[in-house]
Structure formats: structure tokens, C-alpha cells
């Protein structure tokens, strides 16, 4: 008998699997800069970001993607940052964003 389908199915290639443990390199980033955990995705960092106006950089999204294990994309996007620090001045949760971005940028394979 076919399994009943209530329409709750989703495309497995797009689905996040939270059961998978955090990648070791992601854990290192979170442990080196624990203030990243305080991010509540308010988006103020992205709203003030100059680099974000021209590139796909948005710090709060990097945090979400980091936990999702998408380290290549996180590293790539983090490299758009100019380290101007406006995001860090505005962050209501006191996340040490510059250090976080540097750690994230180091996740991408080095440029040849």
C-alpha cells in the first residue's frame, strides 16, 4: 500500500538536517568567538553594511549558514567584508563581528 501523502514533503536537496552534528571547523569558529551565539538575526548588521549593498554579504545570514554547515559559501561571502566595523557598532547583542568575519573568511579555500 502506498504511504499516505499529506503534502508535507519537501525537496530533500533544499532541506536542512539539524540532526547532523556541527562540522568541526564550525565548532572551532563558535568556540573561538562565542559571542556569535548571541546573534538573534535582527538584521541590523546587514542594514548598515556598505559591502552588503554591492555584494551578497549579510552577517546574520552568515551565522545561520555557518550553523547549517555551508562553510564554502560562508567563507566566500565573508571575504566581501571591508572590516569597516559599522555592524559591530550597531549590533544590539554585542557580537564581535569583525573577529567573527575573519574566522569565517578563513573557512574558504585560499585563493590561488
Amino acid at each position: 500500500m502506498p504511504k499516505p501523502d499529506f503534502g508535507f514533503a519537501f525537496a530533500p536537496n533544499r532541506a536542512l538536517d539539524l540532526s547532523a552534528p556541527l562540522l568541526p571547523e564550525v565548532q572551532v569558529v563558535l568556540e573561538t568567538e562565542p559571542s556569535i551565539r548571541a546573534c538573534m538575526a535582527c538584521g541590523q548588521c546587514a542594514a548598515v553594511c556598505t559591502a552588503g549593498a554591492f555584494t551578497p554579504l549579510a552577517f546574520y545570514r552568515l551565522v545561520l549558514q555557518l550553523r547549517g554547515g555551508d562553510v564554502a559559501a560562508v567563507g566566500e561571502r565573508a571575504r566581501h567584508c571591508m572590516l569597516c566595523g559599522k555592524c559591530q557598532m550597531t549590533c544590539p547583542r554585542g557580537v564581535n563581528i569583525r573577529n567573527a568575519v575573519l574566522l569565517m573568511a578563513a573557512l574558504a579555500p585560499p585563493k590561488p
Partner: protein
Amino acid sequence: MNASEYLPKDEVAIIGGGPAGMQTALALSERGFSVRIYEQKEQLGGHLKGWHHLFPHGVAASDLLGQLKEQVLARAVPLHLGQSVDRLQKVGAGWVLWQGERPLGRAGVVVLANGFALFDARRKEEYGYGLYPSVLTAADLEAVFRKEQPWPFGSDRMAPQVGFVHCVGSRDLKCGSPHCSKLCCVTAVKQAMAVKSLFPEAQVYCFYMDLRMHGLEYEELYRKAQVDYGVRFIRGRLSEAAPGQGKRLHVKAEDTLQGRPLHLQLDMLVLMSGMVPAFLLEQQERAVFLKEPVFGSGFVPVQGLLAAGSVVQQEGLFASGACKGPATLPEVFADAAAVAREVEQYLKSLKAVAHA
């Protein structure tokens, strides 16, 4: 019974022996009024009896309950335990309290302090409460903390995966509960931290829609849960829980911040069941009935200022605490003082008329 038979004008009957009832009784007793508590259960305490420790500071619930009971005993407040008032009859300026066909007592003023009920989580069928043993409510988890109930996973699991679902039976028109129960958010944070303290290797997730950290130091607790305890907050309402690998549950949700579906295997799913009315107040000309709530029943309606305790349309009937809507303990205690003051004003106004 006619009006002239009625005498004990200054006597205040308090229906409910939980924190609201006890604190209102204490506040009135301290002002020199004679009060009695009618409690349907055999013990004082209400929902507080079921808690292990309290947010935001982790005070043991039994300590607070013990202090309240001690004060009630020290003031020698008469207790009518195991008496469930289901009807109030207006006689003269006062009330006669009934349980079925049995009169339980009389009072000049009645204060409703019979609190709230917890939403029946079985009604959210997609979460499988009552079907899967690893699905608990927040109240069940408190019982686990109190060692009255076992953990739903084996003791060999040192790194359990645990999920908390916020807003179960709150902010949900399909359940007839449009309101926010407002203390589940911080309760989930408190419980998530407690689970992480007991199982440091656990992965704990909170599935929320908004986090409503309205109280003193709640927001700080939320940040602490994130940074110091590594609790993960996922914005998105769980769509369903189904049997997963082994004894685990397979749950699905949308991560609305990433715009991507997500799924995971859990050893325990905790449903933050909201606060719903414990009774339906039916007001008539000279009688008030306390009936079983029906779909969409509201809390006790009050009039006047926001903190007012006077029940709509009824002189000499007041309401204190969470029977008026979701409230935390500090709010209940503050409300008890406000209601006591209103009761005092009311009784004084009666005397002024009598002496005029």
C-alpha cells in the same frame, strides 16, 4: 433566604488556593478583613505545586510555596479544602457560595482566584502528544525535573537531541486561543538551560515564532541560554512530529530566517502548552455560574483600569490573578495587592452608605 438574613458583610471569600488566592488572602488579612479560602483540591498551591524551579533565578518552587503556606497558616486563614464552588448567588449585598445543591458559605465579597488551565496538547494532533511517549508538555518536564516521572529516553543517551515547541495552543485561532500565554517563552528558555545543565552534551533547539521576553531579566536569560548554554533558537513553527529512527521522533519545520525546510531526529519533544481559561463565567441577574469552558471561551472579564479586579456587571465580585488572563508569579502578586485595595475601597464604600 432574604436580604435581612445576610450579616457577614466584611467577610471575603476567596475561590482558589493557588498563589493568587493565597496572596490576595494575605493582603486582605493584613488589612484586618476576615477572609476564607475555598480550594477545590485537597491542598493549597495550584499549578505552583507542579513546578520544580522558577524563572528567572531558578528559585525552588517548593520554597516559595512553603513560604506562602506558612504565612497563610500564621494568619490562621480558614481553609475549605476539597470544596469546589460552582455557583454564586447574590443575597442582599453579599453572596452565597454553592457546590451543586450544597451551600458552602456566605460572604460580603467574593474574589475569584481560580486561575487557569493548561491547553490540552492532544488537540494539536500533528505533534503526537499522547501517541508518542517522547512527546511531553512543559508541565510533564517539570515533573521529570521533580523526579516524579522518568526521562523519555534511555539513561545511555548522554547527548540527547531535545526540541521545544513554543506557542502550543497559544496564538492559534484554530484552537480557539487567540492570546499569547506569555510565560511559555521564558519557561522554554529556563527548561532548555536545565536540560543542558543535566546533559551538557545535549543538543537543544527552541522552535519559536517570536520570543516574547517581557519580564525583568528574561531577555538576559535568553542571551545566556544562547551564549553560555549553546541552546539553538530556530524561527519557525513545527509542522509535524512522526516516528523516526529507533525510538526517536522525526520532526519537520521551516527555518523561516533561511527560507528553507528543515528536519531532525529528536529524543524528546517538549510542547509549551499555553494557558487557557479554567472555567466559563456565566453572569445572570443575581447569580454567577462557574461552568466548563467551551471552544473559544475567554478569561474572566474585568472593568475599569488595566489592573482592575472588578468583574463586569457584578458588584462585590472581584477577580485576582491568572483567571483574568496569562500572568507570571510577580504579576499575580502585584495584582493581588491591587485587588485587595479595590476590595477594601468597595467595603468602605458600603460602610459609608450604611452610616449615612
